[in-house]
């Protein structure tokens, strides 16, 4: 096992462990904090894959904006932030059964895949990912239309949020 694979396994275990804690912890704010460590783990995976731009964007947008939004939402809607309701309801065994079936199906499907023992291909030196991304975002043969549509999508999200909040005022 190469060093890169060991590092990846450690980070993946950390991310999965944090994800598990998100859904099992009783305190909502703790769940939000575990979510932050999960998102950080994903950022580290991006860094391992040499996608530096995506790694910092993950931290800036997900941890710096979305996680803070989650925490604000939890604080907005919970009267007592130490709420500890019951964790499961009566039909928990149905959920467990479906989860086990899906997991078994995925394992069965991935058995023939050879990507599990491959390492990421080396990026040619001198390849500036951000500059290439900039090129693609702007060239008419590239992604310029999705680029502009993304801005419209963001404004649509903004208008939707304003509409929802405005009605309540």
């Amino acid at each position, binding site marked *: 096992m190469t060093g*890169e694979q060991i590092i990846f396994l450690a980070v993946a275990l950390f991310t999965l462990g944090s994800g598990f804690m998100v859904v099992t912890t009783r305190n909502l704010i703790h769940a939000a904090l575990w979510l932050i460590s999960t998102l950080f783990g994903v950022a*580290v995976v991006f*860094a*391992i894959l*040499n996608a*530096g*731009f995506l*790694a910092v*964007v993950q931290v*800036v*947008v997900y941890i*710096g*904006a*979305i996680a*803070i*939004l989650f925490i*604000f*939402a939890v*604080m*907005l809607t919970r*009267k*007592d*932030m130490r709420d500890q309701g019951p964790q499961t309801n009566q039909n928990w065994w149905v959920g467990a059964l479906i989860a086990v079936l899906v997991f078994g199906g995925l394992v069965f499907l991935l058995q023939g895949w050879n990507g599990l023992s491959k390492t990421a291909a080396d990026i040619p030196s001198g390849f500036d990912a*951000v*500059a290439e*991304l*900039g*090129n693609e*975002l*702007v060239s*008419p043969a590239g992604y*310029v239309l999705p*680029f*502009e549509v*993304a*801005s*419209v999508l*963001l*404004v649509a*999200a*903004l*208008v939707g*949020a*304003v509409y929802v*909040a*405005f009605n*309540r*005022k």
Partner: protein
Amino acid sequence: MSQWIYIGLFFIVGLIIPVGAITVAWILGPKKSNPIKKTTYECGIETVGESWVQFKAQYYIFALVFLIFDVETVFLFPWAVKLGQLGLFAVVEGIIFILILIAGLVYTWRKGMLEWA
């Protein structure tokens, strides 16, 4: 990837220093705790009411607007990196992108979502 290993080293050492300092303080400090020391501070008087504050919804609105503009600005970074080498066409595309989002900001402003009260 070696770059990111060094960043990881910075994270680790950057975490060790404050952990070490606080641990040293914990070791060196006296440990005479009593109930009065553990009470919540409220300008020297006993606390009145629960320590739960009515959370203003306005905080959430500001965080939401920030999220939208954060994603927008992050989109603009690859555009800015390549701007020196591309022509006027790229500049116009970027300006259209920014103008659409400024229109969104003006809409939010006019609807009164950016007021604190």
